[in-house]
């Protein structure tokens, strides 16, 4: 039996809109893939790129960031901040070989449970298609290779 790869996705959601959207989806029994572990932030503007790197280096295959629609931020402008960080972070991680498709930013209002569930499902499929990331656990004693010999 060949088992389908189940990606692990960490989702950082804003308390005011998208976390509630996820909640709405849950209460309305809209199904979304169980691959996403949601972490609630007070605002997407609170998203520190460090969290994303920790998630990826710690074994996540993808990271989802959700926030209120542009213009609707509970804290006025913070979601634009999140957008700028997200775009620069994605470029920085690309330089380290992390495919841009592994990080996604979704806007969702509290009423958009269905839309959010749909986007999450779609993202899970996209990350599944990319395959496991499997970032090394650097705390382990690294097994060195005789690279010079390999070249020769």
């Amino acid at each position: 039996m060949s088992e389908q790869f189940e990606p692990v996705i960490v989702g950082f959601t804003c308390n005011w809109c998208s976390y509630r959207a996820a909640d709405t989806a849950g209460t309305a029994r809209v199904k979304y893939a169980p691959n996403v572990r949601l972490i609630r932030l007070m605002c997407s503007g609170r998203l520190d790129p460090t969290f994303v790197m920790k998630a990826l280096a710690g074994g996540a295959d993808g990271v989802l960031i959700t926030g209120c629609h542009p213009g609707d931020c509970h804290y006025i402008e913070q979601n634009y901040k999140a957008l700028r960080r997200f775009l620069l972070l994605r470029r920085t991680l690309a330089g380290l070989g992390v495919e841009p498709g592994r990080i996604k930013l979704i806007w969702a209002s509290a009423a958009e449970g269905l839309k959010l569930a749909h986007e999450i499902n779609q993202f899970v499929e996209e990350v599944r298609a990319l395959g496991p990331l499997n970032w090394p656990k650097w705390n382990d004693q690294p097994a060195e290779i005789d690279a010079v010999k390999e070249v020769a």
Partner: protein
Amino acid sequence: MSNKPKFAMYWAASCGGCEIAVLNIHEKILDVDANFDVVFWPVAMDAKYKDVEEMEDKSILLTLFNGSMRNDENEKIAHLMRRKSQILVSFGSCATEGCVPGLANLFPVNEIMDVAFHTVTTDNPNNILPQTSFEVPEGTLHLPTMNSRVKTLAQVVDVDYYMPGCPPESHQIAAVVDLVIQVLQGKAQLPPKGSVIGAGNSTVCDECPRARNVKMIKAFHRIQEVAPLDPTLCILEQGVPCNGPATRSGCNARCPRVGAQCIGCYGPAEGVLDYGARLVTAFASVVDAKEPAEIESILDGIPDPTGQFYRFNLADSLMRASTSNWKKNGH
């Protein structure tokens, strides 16, 4: 042999600049000589590894260890110096965070060898490569083997103190030498193990005299493209990438004071878990745009964000190496 405390300094994968910085403490170097017996310092005196191996464990009071862990010889001497020293200082950016040699972690080792020995700038028609062992009539000769990735000293052995900088500023080195001498004379105490010494606790921005006005920018430029920079205003707010916001203080904002951007050689500021992540936040905060397309076009002005944000810190960052490095080399 005198019974003065013993001092050693070693270079692993390094450029020699850290050694020069120590010599640059000028007449203070005489204090080092007056208070210490220099027992091992390859750049300054003739000594063999065997001499160090024969010393008693913990018999060296202070070892300043610079350079990163590029090959197995570096690691072997790191273990040796750890065993022989009471106080092991990770000295300079290479030892502490991998520094520029750590950027090699963006590539697989064989690609590095290719660039060094096979590209057009290298006259090597027979494709001769260094071998890690070679038979000669007298026996087998060995060369160190490259690690799959560059590591920091603390990733290999236990470190007592960290001294950042590429290289550490000479006045900071002099202050540390003074402190150790005072400790020897019972006039001062050593800081807690694991401390960063010879540096400040805030950021380069905090020591920078340039005015910040929370100004947002519409484009990033390379510094040579915006001559002349306004000498009184923040460089980053003039659209030139400056790493000051994430970088540890201690150099007295040496570069921005003379019109150059901080490139981050003092490493992450206190409390910064990932240096590059902090700079992503800092740089994103000056971008004056709300539409994705406009933001992207402004970010095009930073052609190599990974290199910009991790020039000194990649080997000690959360990610540490790129996929092209660890997928090829193993880890």
